[in-house]
C-alpha cells in the first residue's frame, strides 16, 4: 500500500517536497483517468498513453505552481488535455493516425453493426462530451468522481452526459437504430 493512499491532499503536499512514494501513489491513482481524458481528444489509445505520461511529467515540473492542492485532479486533467491537444497540433499526421486507429478499433470491436455505429457515435462527439462518456463508461467513474477530476459541478457532468447521449442517439437513428420507448 502506498503512503497517503487515502489522503490525496497529503500525497500532493508530499510529492511537492519530492517524496517519490507519494508521487507514485498519485500516478497510480490518476493514470487511468489521464489516459481516458487524452483519449477523448486523440482517439488513439497509444497516443493517449503517451500524452498521459507526458502530462504527469509536466505536472511534476509545475507542481510548485499549483495554488490549491484541493484542485490537483482538475489541474492535472487540464494539463493532460493540453498535452493531448499539443500532440494533435504537433503531429502533422495526427488526422491520418486517428483514422487508422479508429479503423483498427472498428475492426477489433465490431461484433455487429450496432457496436460499430456506437463507436462512430462516440468518436463523433465533441471532445467535451466524449470526455464524460469515456470517463463514465470506459473508466467506470461515478458522476461524483468525474466531478472531482474535472473540477466541474455534478449538474454539469450530468448535463454533458445527457447531451452526449442525445447526440449519440441521433447518430444511431440516422444509421437505422431506434431507441426503445
Amino acid at each position, binding site marked *: 500500500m502506498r503512503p497517503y493512499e487515502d489522503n490525496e491532499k497529503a500525497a500532493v503536499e508530499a510529492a511537492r517536497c519530492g517524496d517519490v512514494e507519494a508521487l507514485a501513489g498519485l500516478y497510480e491513482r490518476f493514470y487511468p483517468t489521464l489516459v481516458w481524458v487524452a483519449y477523448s481528444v486523440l482517439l488513439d489509445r497509444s497516443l493517449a*498513453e503517451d500524452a498521459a505520461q507526458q502530462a504527469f511529467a509536466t505536472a511534476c515540473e509545475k507542481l510548485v505552481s499549483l495554488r490549491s492542492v484541493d484542485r490537483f485532479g482538475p489541474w492535472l486533467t487540464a494539463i493532460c488535455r493540453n498535452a493531448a491537444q499539443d500532440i494533435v497540433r504537433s503531429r*502533422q499526421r495526427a488526422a491520418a493516425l486517428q483514422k487508422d486507429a479508429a479503423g483498427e478499433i472498428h475492426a477489433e*470491436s465490431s461484433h455487429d453493426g450496432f457496436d460499430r455505429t456506437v463507436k462512430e457515435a462516440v468518436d463523433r462527439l465533441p471532445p467535451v462530451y466524449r470526455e464524460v462518456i469515456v470517463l463514465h*463508461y470506459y473508466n467506470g467513474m461515478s458522476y461524483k468522481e468525474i466531478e472531482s477530476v474535472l473540477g466541474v459541478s455534478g449538474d454539469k457532468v450530468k448535463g454533458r452526459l445527457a447531451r452526449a447521449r442525445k447526440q449519440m442517439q441521433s447518430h444511431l437513428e440516422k444509421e437505422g437504430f431506434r*431507441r426503445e420507448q
Partner: protein
Amino acid sequence: MERTYSEQELEQAIRRTAPGGPPKPDFEAWQQRHAGALCATGRSVNRKTNDGPPVTRVIRLGRCIMEKRRTRFAVAAAAVIVLAVVFFGRGTNKAWSMEQTIAALKKIETLHITGKNLCEGKLVDFECWVRLFGEGSDSLRMRYQCGCERKTTVVVQGGTVYAYWPAGNVVRIMDGSKMEDLQYWYEGAKISPWLTGKLLETLKLIGRGWQQKVETDPNTGTEQIIVTCNHPPSNISALLVVDPQSKLVRQAKLWRNLRREGEPEFDAQAIVYNPEVPTEFFEFKIPPGATVLSKEDGEKTQALFERAEQLFHQDKKYAEAIGLYQQVYDRYPQIGWGSTSLMMIGICHTHLGDHGKAIEFYQRALREHPTGWEGVIQFYLGAAYLDNGQTQEALKAFENCLTDAEGKRGPDEFPVKDAREYIAKIKGK
C-alpha cells in the same frame, strides 16, 4: 430495416467499444522515461522556498544526481562518497566509525576516478580528477574527460567552467554558479574539504536500508566491505566497495532505482586517492586557434536560441523562428546549438510544407556536427522523405533511426515507436 435498442444495450455497447483493457499505471517505467520530471519536483520546491534546512537541500541536490546529461561528471562521485560516509556513520559495526572515515577523508587532497557514466543516453568511459585546495567553493578544481564521441573535456576552476570540444576546436566558458550539477560540489567545498564536518552530520539523516558485509575479493584475495543502500526520496541505490584498512571507497555504483537493477548509471570502477597530479593539470589553457565562446556570448546565444524556441513551440511562427535559428547557427556552427538549430530549421520547413528544404537541413545537421540527436534527426528526415514521396529513402532513414536508438532509447519512446510504425506501414504497402 430499423433495429431497436434499449438504454442498457447502448451502455453495454459503449463499454465494449473501449479500445484496449484498463490502462495499467507503471510508475517505474514512467520514471525511466521522465527522470527529469522527478528531479524537477525537488528543484521546484527549492526555487520556491529558496533556502530550506540543510538536510532538505542536500536531499534535493542528491535527487538530481545522474539525471542531467550535461556536465554531470563528478557529482555522482561526490554522492557516493557522501553516502559511504553517511552509512558508516549510522553503522553498528565497530570496525568503522564515521570519525575514522572523516579522518581518512581529511587526508585526501586529490581524487582520480575512472569508470562509466551516462552521456547523451549512452554509458561511456570517463575519467575525472578532483582537487580541493582549501575551504570554499573557489578552491574546487576538477577535470573531467568524457569518452563520448565528442570527447568533451570539462575543467572547473572555482566558479569558472571551461568546456572543450576538440573536433571543432571550440571552448565555451561558463559560470559554475549557474550550473545546477556543480552546486553539490560547491556546497560541500564551502563547508569543509571532502564533505566533512557539519555537512556529514546533516547527511547522517538521509541514508536508508543499508546493509554491509565483509567479503574476500576473488581477484586480490584481500578483504573488502560491501555496502549496499538506497535513498527512496531520491530513488537511487548504491553499492560501495570499501577498503577495511583505509576506510576509503574503492569502487562505487549508482542505480536510478531502489533495487540496483540493470546497468548502473554511474560506475566508478576505480578510485585512486592522492595520486600525483601537477597543479597545472587543473588549469585550462585555451588551445591555439580555438573558437572561444565567452560567458557573455554564451548567454546572448542562449537567449537567442530560447527566443527561437518560443517562436517555434508557443507562437508557431515557423518562418520567423527559422531566422533566429539561422542566426544561432551562424554564430556557432561547431557546437550543439548549431546542429540543433539546423534540425529545428528543418522541422520549421516541414511545418511550412517545404519538404525539399526540410530534407536539405536534416542532412546538413547529420553531416556537419554529430550530437545525441542523430536518431531524432533521422526520424524527421524519414518523415520528410515520406512527405516528398521518396519511400525507399524514408525507409532507410527510419531504419537508421532505430539503429541509433539501440541502447539509448526504449522501444516505446519517441522516435523509436514512431519510426517502427512508419516502417511497418511502408513495408505493408
